[in-house]
């Protein structure tokens, strides 16, 4: 039986290679300190974290919140969030993005529906959440004080994907970008995937 294009696209030669190319390209820019169109990589909010992937069982029309990306402002002045978007969305839509201060070791995680979930850990300071766009992030007074980026994603088709989360912001008059390099696979079925076996669902 022919597999949907979205699944075919998730073979090892598809999005993994794309992810690798994106990651390497981003890393190359980042490590070389290059900029593109006045937007620099490797800014005071970091590089978006480690690469990886996430399969989430979501029915068509369903919503989940991804809250794994964290960062601190290591700059010397306030950073202002400009834009948060999904990278290469295919059947996925970003409904909302929030910034939530974290006051301990536990972060939001991956949870069904819109935030806030009813069973949040105490260190997720949801009472102080803001819409991501326009959020002002002061330089972090302590290394282990960090911000948690929450993105609310809707599935529009049985197999839906994205290859990361793009974040644009400004600090000290300079525009920056980072990509949280997470390949998302949203499936109306169950997650039985293994990347190294071709992301079969």
């Amino acid at each position, binding site marked *: 039986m022919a597999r949907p294009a979205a699944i075919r696209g998730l073979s090892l030669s598809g999005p993994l290679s794309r*992810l690798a190319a994106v990651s390497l390209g981003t890393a190359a820019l980042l490590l*070389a300190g290059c900029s593109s169109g006045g937007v620099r990589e490797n800014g005071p909010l970091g590089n978006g974290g*480690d690469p990886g992937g996430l399969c989430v069982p979501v029915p068509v029309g369903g919503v989940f919140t991804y809250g794994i990306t964290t960062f601190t402002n290591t700059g010397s002045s306030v950073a202002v969030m400009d834009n948060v978007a999904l990278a290469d969305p295919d059947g996925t839509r970003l409904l909302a993005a929030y910034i939530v201060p974290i006051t301990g070791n536990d972060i939001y995680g991956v949870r069904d529906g819109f935030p806030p979930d009813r069973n949040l850990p105490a260190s997720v300071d949801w009472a102080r959440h803001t819409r991501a766009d326009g959020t002002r992030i002061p330089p972090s007074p302590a290394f282990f004080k960090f911000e948690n980026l929450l993105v609310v994603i809707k599935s529009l088709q049985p197999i839906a994907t994205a290859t990361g989360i793009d974040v644009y912001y400004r600090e000290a008059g300079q525009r920056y970008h980072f990509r949280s390099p997470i390949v998302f696979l949203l499936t109306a079925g169950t997650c039985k995937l293994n990347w190294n076996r071709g992301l079969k669902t």
Partner: protein
Amino acid sequence: MTGCDALSHHTGARRRVCTVRRKFSSAIGIVGLVLGLVVGLASPLASAAASHKTPAGALITQGRVLDVNGQAAAGARIRLYAEPPRTVMSPMQPGQAIRFRQVGSAVTSASGRHAIAIRSLGVLQAEANPDGIVNLEITAMVGSRSGLFVFPVQLMHAADGTLFAVSSGARRSGPVAANIRLIGLPRFSPAQPAPQCGITHLLRTSRPHWAVVGQTGAIVGGINQQFTYEKDQSSNLGIGVQQLNGKFSEQGTFPSSTNQTIPFPKLGGYITKNYKTEFQYGLYAQECAPNFTQVYRYWGGAQIQSIGAIEATYCAFYAKGTAPIWQTTRAATVGAGIGISEIGFSASAQTGWSESASVQYWMVKAGQDVCGTHGPPGSDPRIVIVGAS
């Protein structure tokens, strides 16, 4: 005749390997010959002057040289070599020798500091492995003492095509800190009018030894876990330098790649595991440097070992049914990840550098906390465990 004299730096062409007939055991007396010796270099190099000014070019390494008592070693002669790629090193047989390409030099300042830059990183390309990784070796020598430190860099191209080198972990581009202790005895060739620094002899090889290449764990049930170690995945394994007392001390790491995929199975919950595969180590003697031991080649095999629970306290909840994957770009270092019993050397092991090693969990029956040992799951967690400690 050794044949080593005729060795030339290779430039992608077939490299000549020479057979060693000399004995080295009585060779350590010719210390004075090396002082003031300047080896002809195959590439333009910048050297750090005694004033410790940062040299021109791409700064590859900097650090200090300390003598055996921990005091600054001034005036130590520093040489930076690029090791040949695996395709050249692995086929070597005991008794054979090869010349490492010298790519930089320096003399330490009064405070023992050194810095070495390479004017053009293109000189490293001929020594790079297919994954772009080049093993660089620094030797230091002053008087009758020597030291050695090995570290990998990865060559990458920026968007504009510029070549640059990334230090271990692929997360930063700055110079590698190479702090060297003069803990060993330099080797010389008595038959030579002057030491042939950089010529490296494979003395013998070890039997295969298990190395830890991955870890997973869960202190809860209702989940599945799997570690995947694909072909060409690289692990950094410790290098041992022979000290004056004959024992080996870890002085840097050496990346070694597999040539096959290791099929570690999917496991259930309530267990924490080390995943192992086997490597062979080689014992090398290098002229103008102490003896050292490093990975000779990948051997193969798969072994899973139960270990105690690992404490991980940076957590995030993952809903029921989700299946996250971590690519171990910067996995945790396992302190005694491999033991070379023949010489009593225990080395660290760290898997990373590629997307072909991964840790995956499946939240089968319920949502669970997933916790990192060093940071939250999305930001440098190192070891990732299901269930909060």
